[in-house]
């Protein structure tokens, strides 16, 4: 609460509570990095030490070598991220435009249908979707993982529509009087004004694809085609939970790109997430 001066003692207590929570939230990261730099025997010493007696940078190249196709996995993940970002940004922006900047009969009813589709969990439709892709001969290729993104995601449409609605109607009217077609208004006026929103959608999609596990698990069949997330899981199950120093090194490597991306785009990230919950 921002009104009425909070008592200094209370403020100090709140600060301490937040600091303790922050330590609890950071501890797993510190533990992960600490383990990833330990020699194997020190991962098993009790009580656990935070600082390894000698820092084993070598665990990282070793983990990469043990995973065999690490760089291929990274390339596959990156390829899928790029494709799905392109796919979802173009298709969701077009769809969101149709749901916000043009008035047509039945539009709001269709929008409710779109919102309702967000409630369908992927496991529920997974089997027929698998069957469909099998009939197309797509199992074991990347296509099931990126082609669907070109058909717009309900969540991204919802997010972009919120932004499109904030732009005044007059700018479209003025452009229409000047003889612009809808696609020209979309490309030349609305899209440039909505760059921050498009960036949010791109970031969220990148994260989703980078993190996705179930999709790659059912659609990819060849180990060399795995994504990093799936490759890490496969590495973990081979290890059977013994070489924790290597597993933590590999985990760190999979998390790192996401964290780096976050720090470069922090503002649009958190603003975008906040928007998803509050502007509905």
């Amino acid at each position, binding site marked *: 609460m921002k009104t009425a001066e909070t008592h200094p003692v209370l403020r100090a207590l709140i600060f301490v509570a937040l600091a303790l929570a922050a330590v609890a939230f950071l501890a797993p990261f510190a533990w992960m990095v600490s383990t990833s730099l330990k020699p194997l025997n020190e991962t098993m010493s009790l009580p656990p030490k935070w600082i390894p007696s000698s820092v084993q940078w070598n665990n990282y190249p070793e983990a990469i070598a043990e995973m065999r196709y690490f760089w291929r996995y990274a390339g596959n993940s990156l390829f899928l991220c790029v494709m799905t970002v392109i796919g979802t940004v173009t298709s969701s922006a077009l769809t969101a435009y149709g749901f916000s900047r043009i008035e047509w009969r039945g539009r709001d009813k269709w929008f409710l249908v779109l919102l309702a589709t967000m409630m369908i969990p992927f496991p529920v439709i997974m089997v027929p979707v698998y069957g469909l892709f099998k009939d197309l001969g797509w199992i074991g290729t990347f296509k099931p993982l990126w082609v669907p993104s070109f058909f*717009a995601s309900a969540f991204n449409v919802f997010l972009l529509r919120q932004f499109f609605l904030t732009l005044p109607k007059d700018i479209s009217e003025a452009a229409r009087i000047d003889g612009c077609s809808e696609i020209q208004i979309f490309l030349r006026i609305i899209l440039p004004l909505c760059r921050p929103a498009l960036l949010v959608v791109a970031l969220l999609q990148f994260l989703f694809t980078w993190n996705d596990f179930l999709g790659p698990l059912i659609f990819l069949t060849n180990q060399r085609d795995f994504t990093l997330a799936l490759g890490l899981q496969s590495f973990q199950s081979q290890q059977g939970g013994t070489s924790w120093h290597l597993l933590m090194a590999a985990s760190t490597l999979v998390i790192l790109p996401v964290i780096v991306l976050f720090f470069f785009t922090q503002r649009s990230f958190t603003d975008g997430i906040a928007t998803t919950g509050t502007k509905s």
Partner: protein
Amino acid sequence: MTKNERRRLATGLLFISPWLVGFFALCVYPLVSSVYFSLCDYSVLSPPVFIGVRNYQNLWIDNVFWTSLYNTVFFAVFAIPLGLVVSLSLAVLLNFSIPGKGIFRTIFFLPSLVPMVCLAVLWQWMLNGELGLVNNAANPVLHVLNDMLGTAWSAPNWLQDARYAKWGIIFTGLWGVGNAVVIYLAGLQDVPRYLYESADIDGAGFWQKTIHITIPVISPVIYFNSIMGLIGTFQVFAVPFVMTNGGDGPERSLLFMATYLYENAFAYWNMGYACAIGVILFLVILALTWLATKLSEKHVYYAGK
């Protein structure tokens, strides 16, 4: 319809056509076929054979299915309210003017970026009974408590113990509440100041303001987050799957509906049976969302309505 109206309808449909195609091909068709396949003997390798409600009859007497349903409900019943309390409390604390607010927000948000597989691998290590950080932090505390109270508590071997395995997954999930913290904080910042100012004049304290102003005003955000949490927790898959190396956990304590669906579909190629599980999963989510919406009509406050 006038000519102009017809033209706008055509343009509108053209713009939403990417979604429309996807809606029919990747949503309506799979949903309808899922219901149809759930009435079939189907292995993907050969065409489905209609067998009526036999899959559902088998589910009814399948103890493993009931275990998965129980585990999923257990997980949702504890994970959603706990997540709500933790994330809302952190957001309320962050909403005070505190030094380092931005840094705290970033710290709480970071874990929600961690990919599910990494989350699972990391917390499998965190929750390791002997070597894990959680128990090594808990043991000294329990030791002091035991000395004081004369008890004999000890930290459980989380993921290897059927009684505690689900709690392990629930705690793992709590680490990722940062997403909700950011959403709640944004909601809290939208609460009009004059409400607090007039409450101050009336001499209301922190709790009174929280219960009578903050919670009602942000109730739409709570509703939104709870529905999202509901849909998310009912399809929990990746974390328990990775933590158990693709298994079910001790005494099937980590077998969830999505796991059992996956096993039937892709381990036993029992696609019809898997679809029946999917249909039930969907119906459960629909019923609970409907229930939550009914409750929200009474308790959720929408400004301007």
